[in-house]
């Protein structure tokens, strides 16, 4: 039991904290740990875990950690796997965040942040672009409704200042009815 927990901790620590580039980058790393190294599950079972995780909202890594952690060592497994996934970087970030506040008056830091903000803007543009490419795959006539949904969402944001959650729920209902 303790060995299992320790292995879970190490596996998810490695997979999550070497996984630069967010959730999707982490999946192959978790697969390498869970299927190949520790052989907690077969490739098919791992694919099932991904399918379950993809059907649900929220970060992918914590969902897979929950699934595999529970399978290997029940609730203690869940806790250990999630902690290994998220805690190290959260602790580092809280320390960095404190430095950000502490030196917020410093000209040097202000200059550095002025330099980084355009890059974050560009990064979001790229993410939005990739998401749009995936969303607007127009193969059939019915796919044009994705454009209608997008325009509706944009109008909701600008004219009615709609809460994003409302737009998401409405779009899922629309998707269910249209597609």
């Amino acid at each position: 039991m303790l060995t299992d927990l320790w292995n879970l901790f190490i596996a998810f620590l490695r997979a999550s904290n070497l996984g630069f580039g967010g959730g999707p980058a982490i999946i192959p790393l978790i697969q390498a740990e869970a299927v190949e190294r520790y052989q907690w599950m077969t490739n098919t079972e791992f694919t099932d875990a991904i399918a379950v995780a993809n059907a649900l909202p929220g970060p992918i890594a914590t969902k897979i950690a929950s699934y595999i952690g529970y399978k290997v060592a029940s609730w203690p497994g869940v806790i250990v796997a999630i902690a290994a996934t998220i805690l190290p970087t959260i602790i580092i970030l809280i320390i960095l965040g404190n430095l950000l506040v502490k030196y917020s008056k410093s000209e040097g830091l202000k200059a550095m942040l002025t330099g980084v903000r355009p890059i974050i803007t560009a990064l979001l543009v790229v993410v939005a672009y990739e998401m749009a490419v995936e969303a607007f795959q127009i193969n059939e006539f019915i796919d044009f409704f994705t454009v209608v949904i997008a325009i509706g969402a944009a109008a909701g944001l600008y004219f009615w200042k709609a809460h994003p959650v409302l737009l998401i729920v409405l779009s899922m209902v629309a998707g269910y009815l249209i597609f």
Partner: protein
Amino acid sequence: MKTLWDLFIAFFRASNFSFGGGPAAIPLVQAEVVNKYKWLTNEEFSDILAISNSLPAPIATKLAGVIGYRVKGLLGATVAVIGVFLPTTLIVVFLGGIIINYADSPALQAMLKGVRPVVAVLLAQTAISMGIKALKDKPTWCLAIIALIIMLFFPSVHPAFLVVISMLLGYFLFKK
């Protein structure tokens, strides 16, 4: 107590309505943290996003940890992070076996297809609201355009690398 509850609800909503992986949560976190509860300004959010993006692990839990801590210390961080992952953890553990049967169902695929354009629009809107504050003059525009070109044409260059380089450049370009 009220603040802790607000933190929980804010990150619960932001995480559990974000379909399409980590980045999809960013506009939702912004809507809660900047627009609704006004814990941070747009610039502060953008700065936290910058440092969060330069480290590995899921973006939603990182944002929850840092922002929760900023608002209400360690307890705030804990509550916000729990709000992000607990609901889906419970669903995965208790209903994982059932969800497998529906993961490929046309109804779910249709709903996810409906939500994708909205996620794209939300991300675009976040990019615009950050751009308004970030792109104030020619040098900042240049930085953004260069970064955009690098990311689109050399996708193997890691964003964390761009973040660090841009901070160094910023130090020399913008320090008064």
